[in-house]
């Protein structure tokens, strides 16, 4: 049950006379009242992990139905960050929409750009030069590392370890410097454009990126020492929020969460796009090393290994980077082909980002639907958080690694 609406408009602010009224507003979900002999009545507590909360990764409201510390039900309320992206997509041209994709998963803007732009290029049959393809892969994988660093840091922060947060962001600063030198922005890049990329790599950039990789590779063992195999962290995350594979597939979970549940599925290998088929990298899969397959620790570990693999890909891409133009031939005024529609999906750090573009021959898309990985990943939260404690729920939300920008669009 997920009432996905603007929770703040009228719902939350009204004073409710009783918990029963609250329940009625939730759609008649019943509240269990346990009758114990001797006039002692225990009720469940409704607790609001509100939109502003240090632990929800963005403006997410979680309504918890709890009995003491045990969570009986979690109801996510989304929509606090809705910005009508899909409607805007129908009103701006294809090129004008690229900056809007930045702000979907704002921690992985390059990947969002890439997904959309590949879709448009496929729709129009545009060619992208080799150099641009290589640069795109480099940027997308660096951004994957940056996004997973945030996931790692905030996971530690939610567990009470403040230091990994600082370390993760320290590494991110180096990646931000690379991006800032290349395209001018630190978070929302608008770099990968239709037909290629917007600017060429500046002088010394290849050296700067390989220096970053040399700096980054020894960090992973440091992270293992600090957090991964720390007994307290393992106790908090192993066997917590176990996501069975069939449930994951049923709810449309993709990305590291799906791989942690045991399925080796990565769009970069299974449905390669761009030039990903030229690179050699491994796909980490959850093995239940510390607990059960698909627990929070597995999801955490999959991301750490993915960072290592992304570094590997970037190294290979740097070696193979050719010279050449950075944009292909793109018509100034893009008119989509008449009555054509396509769905393109790419592997973003959080999962499978899909763009369903319907073109009717005009300057703007007729319909632009965005399939958000975090939306589907979050939908599984009520299923796996049930029966755990509040602290576990924090761990599970952190391990799912959601970003409200792409959930709400």
């Amino acid at each position, binding site marked *: 049950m997920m009432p996905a609406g603007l929770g703040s408009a009228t719902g939350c602010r009204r004073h409710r006379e009783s918990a029963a009224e609250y329940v009625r507003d939730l759609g008649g979900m019943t509240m269990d009242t346990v009758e114990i002999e001797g006039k002692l009545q225990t009720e469940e*507590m409704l*607790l609001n992990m509100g939109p502003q*909360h*240090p*632990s929800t990764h963005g403006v997410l409201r979680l309504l918890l139905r709890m009995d003491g*510390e045990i969570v009986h039900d979690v109801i996510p309320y989304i929509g606090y960050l809705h910005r009508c992206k899909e409607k805007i997509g129908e009103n701006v041209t294809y090129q004008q929409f690229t900056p809007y994709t930045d702000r979907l998963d704002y921690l992985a803007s390059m990947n969002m750009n890439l997904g959309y732009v590949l879709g448009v290029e496929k729709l129009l049959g545009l060619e992208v030069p080799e150099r641009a393809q290589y640069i795109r892969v480099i940027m997308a994988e660096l951004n994957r590392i940056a996004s997973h660093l945030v996931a790692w840091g905030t996971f*530690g*922060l*939610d*567990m*009470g*370890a*403040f*230091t990994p*947060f*600082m*370390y993760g962001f*320290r590494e991110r600063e180096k990646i931000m410097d690379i991006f800032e030198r290349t395209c001018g922005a630190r978070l929302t890049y608008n770099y990968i454009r239709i037909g290629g990329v917007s600017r060429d790599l500046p002088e010394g950039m290849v050296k700067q990126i390989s220096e970053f990789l040399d700096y980054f590779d020894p960090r992973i063992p440091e992270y293992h020492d*600090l*957090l991964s195999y*720390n007994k*307290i*962290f393992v*106790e*908090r995350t192993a066997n917590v929020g176990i996501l069975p594979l069939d449930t994951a597939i049923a709810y449309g979970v993709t990305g590291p969460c799906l791989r942690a549940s045991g399925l080796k599925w990565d769009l970069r290998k299974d449905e390669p796009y761009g030039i990903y088929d030229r690179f050699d990298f491994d796909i980490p899969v959850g093995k239940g090393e510390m607990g059960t397959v698909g627990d929070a620790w597995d999801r955490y570990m999959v991301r750490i290994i993915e960072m290592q693999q992304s570094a590997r890909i970037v190294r290979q891409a740097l070696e193979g980077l050719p010279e050449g133009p950075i944009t292909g031939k793109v018509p100034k005024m893009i008119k989509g082909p008449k009555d054509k529609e396509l769905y393109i999906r790419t592997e973003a750090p959080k999962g499978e980002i899909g763009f369903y573009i319907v073109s009717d021959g005009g300057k703007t898309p007729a319909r632009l639907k965005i399939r958000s990985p975090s939306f589907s990943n979050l939908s599984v939260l009520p299923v796996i958080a049930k029966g755990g*404690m*509040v*602290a*576990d729920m*924090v761990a599970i939300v952190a391990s799912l690694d959601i970003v409200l920008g792409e959930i709400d669009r």
Partner: protein
Amino acid sequence: MESLAAWFENNFSAAAGMPKELIYFGAILISCVLVLAFMLLLVLFFIWEERKVSGHIQSRVGPMRVGGWHGWAQTIADTIKLFLKEDIVPRAADKRLFLLAPFLAFFGVFAAFVVLPYGERTLVTDLNVGVFYILAITSFSVIAIVVAGWASNNKWSLYGAMRSAAQIVSYEIPMTIAVLVPVLYVGSMSMVSLSEAQSGGVWNWIVFRSPFTFVAFIIFFIASLAETNRTPFDLPEAESELVAGFHTEYTGIKFAMFFLAEYAALFLVSGVATTLFLGGWNGILPTQIMPGPVVFCVKSLFLVFVIIWLRWTLPRLRVDQLMYMCWKVLLPISFVCLLGVAVQKLLF
């Protein structure tokens, strides 16, 4: 304090005429003010130390500007800021209890401070049940936390308060048994006697005299982390989960009092650990170079540093894991230590 009263009597001719009670009262007042001033200075230092240490562990520097050298005046500036803040009391909060809670927290810690033996003659008073008194008075923190959580009229505060009450009360038991080990070894509950029994070199410190006392020291240290709500046991203030736990609704001076009580409690448990296990005021260097109180403070400050270090390294335990550790791990081990020390005293 008694010596202070005698000093008054001897040196002030006007004092000779006053009744003994008045002189004593004056001495008590001065001693308490001195201890309070010491406590405040310590807290000032600790908060700065915490920020610098945490900064350096996290690959940054911490305060650098306020006051010039490495931001030493940062805490003073922060305290002034806290005092100037608007005092907000939630409308539905229980006003009297809301006001009472911070002072209870402060009182619990301060009342125990007066029993710490800083030096052979630098102490306020030497109760012959000093250890017992400290354990009893520090339980005030539970009342303070529960009152704060309840009076805030905020579900999150209540949650934090309940967790904290369970945690502190549970960990008092292994802590008490760990404290009983040196008491049993020395045969006295008086803090001064415990310190005197450890004179004569480092190997005379109680922590080194028996494997059981060594383990008891570790248990005491872990239990005191739980008593003062420090990571890895900082669930009641778990910022990531409960905003700020039981002191969410507190602002200004009241928040400053909670803050002060927490950091003063750090020194308190370190001071107790130093007295019970690490030799108290007995040092290696002769007392002319390093007098007793300095030695005591150095040892306690070192333990506080370790506590701060742990906070920024470890994640936090979940509440049931915390309880498990207390009842099923620390408690049995502390029983074994107590038994071991008793047998050791009997046989050797």
